C-alpha cells in the first residue's frame, strides 16, 4: 500500500485531473448541438486519458526492467516496429486496401504481432544467456534503427499518396485521436494497467536487480517477459491512438519519481498514470481552447521531455 504522503499526492493529482476534465468538457459550451459537442469532447477526453496513462505506465514499467531512468520503450524500437508494420501494410495492400481493413481487427492483430515479436526478440535474447539488460537494450536500440531504416526504404518506393498515408501515422498528434480504436484500445489499456497494479509488489522486487530478485524467489525471466509484454501492448495502444511519442514518457516518469514518497510501484504507477493523463488533458485544454493551437501539444511535450532528458544528464540522476 502507498505511504500516506503518496496517498496525498494521488488525491491531489486526481483532483487536478477531475478539474481539468471538467474545464475540457464544459468550457465555452454553447446552447446549440450541446450533446454532439459533449460526445465529441468526452471521446477525446477518454483518448487523452488512455494515452497519457498508457505511455506513463509503459515507461515506468520499462524503466523498472531496464533499471535505468533515462530509457523509454521507444528506445527499444517498440514504436519503430509499430510504424514498420503500418508501412509494410500500406505497401502490401495499397491505400484502398489499408482503408478497407476493419480497424479493430487490424488493431488487435497489430498488438498480437507486437507482443509476439517482443516476446521472440527478448525471449531469445534472455534465453541464450544475454541475461544482462544492457545488452538486451542495446540490441533493441539497433533493431529500432533497423526498423526505421526499413520503414524509410519502403516509404521511398511507395507512390506519393500511399507515402502521405504512412506519414499521417508517423507523427504524434494529440488533437486527432483515432476514435474508432478508442473503445478496444481503452479496454485493453485498462486491463494492462490493472495487471500492472496487481503486479506492483513483484515489480518492486524486480527493481532490486536480478540477484536480489532471484534470492527473494521471484521468477525473474518470466517477470521480465511479462512486464515487457505489458509495455508492448500499452505502447501499441498509445501509438495506434495518437502516433509515436518519444520523450513524453520520460518526462512523466521523471515527474512521478519526484512526486512519489518512494519508488514503490503501488504509489509510482497511479501517480505516473495520473500525471500523464493530467499533462495531456490540461495541456490540450490550454492549447486547443485558450490558444487555438490543437496540434501544438505534442511538440511542446516532446520539447519539455527533451529538456528534462538533458536535466537528468546534467544532474547525474541517471542510474
Amino acid at each position, binding site marked *: 500500500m502507498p505511504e500516506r504522503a503518496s496517498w496525498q499526492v494521488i488525491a491531489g493529482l486526481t483532483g487536478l485531473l477531475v478539474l481539468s476534465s471538467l474545464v475540457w468538457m464544459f468550457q465555452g459550451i454553447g446552447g446549440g448541438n450541446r450533446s454532439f459537442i459533449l460526445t465529441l469532447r468526452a471521446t477525446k477526453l477518454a483518448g487523452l486519458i488512455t494515452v497519457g496513462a498508457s505511455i506513463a505506465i509503459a515507461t515506468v514499467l520499462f*524503466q*523498472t526492467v531496464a*533499471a*535505468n*531512468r533515462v530509457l523509454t520503450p521507444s528506445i527499444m524500437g517498440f514504436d519503430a516496429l509499430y510504424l514498420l508494420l503500418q508501412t509494410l501494410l500500406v505497401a502490401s495492400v495499397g491505400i484502398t486496401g489499408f482503408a478497407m481493413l476493419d480497424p479493430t481487427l487490424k488493431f488487435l492483430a497489430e498488438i498480437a504481432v507486437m507482443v509476439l515479436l517482443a516476446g521472440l526478440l527478448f525471449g531469445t535474447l534472455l534465453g541464450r544467456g544475454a541475461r544482462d539488460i544492457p545488452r538486451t537494450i542495446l540490441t533493441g536500440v539497433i533493431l529500432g534503427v533497423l526498423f526505421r531504416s526499413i520503414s524509410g526504404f519502403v516509404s521511398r518506393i511507395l507512390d506519393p499518396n500511399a507515402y502521405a498515408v504512412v506519414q499521417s501515422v508517423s507523427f504524434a498528434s494529440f488533437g486527432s485521436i483515432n476514435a474508432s480504436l478508442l473503445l478496444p484500445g481503452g479496454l485493453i489499456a485498462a486491463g494492462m494497467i490493472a495487471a500492472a497494479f496487481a503486479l*506492483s*509488489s*513483484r515489480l*518492486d*522486487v524486480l*527493481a*532490486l*536487480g*536480478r*540477484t*536480489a530478485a*532471484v*534470492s*527473494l*524467489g*521471484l*521468477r525473474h525471466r518470466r517477470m521480465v517477459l511479462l512486464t515487457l509484454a505489458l509495455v508492448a501492448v500499452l505502447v501499441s495502444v498509445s501509438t495506434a491512438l495518437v502516433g509515436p511519442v518519444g520523450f513524453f514518457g520520460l518526462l512523466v516518469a521523471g515527474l512521478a*519519481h519526484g512526486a512519489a514518497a*518512494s*519508488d*514503490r510501484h503501488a504509489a509510482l504507477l497511479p501517480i505516473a498514470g495520473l500525471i500523464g493523463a493530467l499533462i495531456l488533458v490540461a495541456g490540450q485544454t490550454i492549447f486547443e481552447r485558450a490558444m487555438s493551437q490543437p496540434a501544438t501539444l505534442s511538440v511542446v511535450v516532446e520539447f519539455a521531455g527533451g529538456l528534462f532528458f538533458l536535466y537528468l544528464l546534467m544532474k547525474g540522476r541517471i*542510474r
Partner: protein
Amino acid sequence: MIEIHDLHYRVGAAPILSDISLSLPEGSLTALIGPNGAGKSTLLRLMARLEPLQSGRITVEGLDLATTPTDAMARTLAIMGQQNSVASRLRVRELVGFGRWPHHQGRPRAADREAVEAAIDAFGLQPFAGRFLDELSGGQVQRAFLAMTFAQDTAWMLLDEPLNNLDVAHARALMARLAQLVQDTGRSVVAVVHEVNYAAAWADHVVAMKHGRIVAQGAAEAVLTEDLLSDLYDTPVEVSRHDGRPLVLHHHSHSRIADLSRGRLPDRARLS
C-alpha cells in the same frame, strides 16, 4: 547441508568449473578462498541458481536446485551478490523489508516487521534506517543488503564477497557478526572471501579453489597451511598462530612476524 555432485561448468569452450563434488556442513561459516579466476563466485552463483546448471547436481537441505520452485528455495537459501545497488530510491528499512518478501508476498504482518527491526539492529543500521540508500556510503549500503539477506531468515546465506566496500574495522566486525550469528542461530553461511586472514580468523570450514577445481576443504586449521596456501596463490606465505587461529603473512614480511610476536608493532598493525 549443501551437497554438490560432479559439477562442471563451461563458458563457450573454456572450462570454468571441473569435477566439483562437495558437502558443505550446516551450522558453520564456510569460506571459499582462492586466487582470482579460481571459480569461487561462479560456484556460489550456481548454488544460488543465478546461473543454469550445465551438468551435475546441487541439493540444499535435500531440495534439488534444478527441480525445486524458486519461491520455495527462497525460504531455504538467501543470496547476496557482489554488486549491490538498486535503481529504485529506497530507504534502508524498505530494503531490509524486502527480505521478508518470500514469507509474505507483499502483505507484511507484525512478525515480518519485527524480523526487519531485528535485522536492522543486528547489523547496526538503526541510525540510518530511515535514510535513503543513495545517502549512505558504500559500506553502509553493503550492510543494508546483508541485513536484507539476514531478514530472509533462511537456513543458508550465500555471500559473494561480503567484505566489498568495507574498511578493516567494519570487515572485522562483519566477520565477527557472521560467526556469532552462526553460533547463535545455527544458520549456515557460505562466503567468498579474498583476504585469507578473515577466513583464518573466523571460518569454521574452508574450501580452497584453483583453476576451477577444489584443491582442499576442511577445518580452517587443516586447510590453511603454508604449503597449500603458497601453492594456491603461487606466492610464498608464512602461517603463524594467533589466539589459537592461523595467521597468514606474506613471505616478504617474514621479518615482521618476529616483530609482531615480540609486540614491537603498534596495535593497529596487528591483523587480528
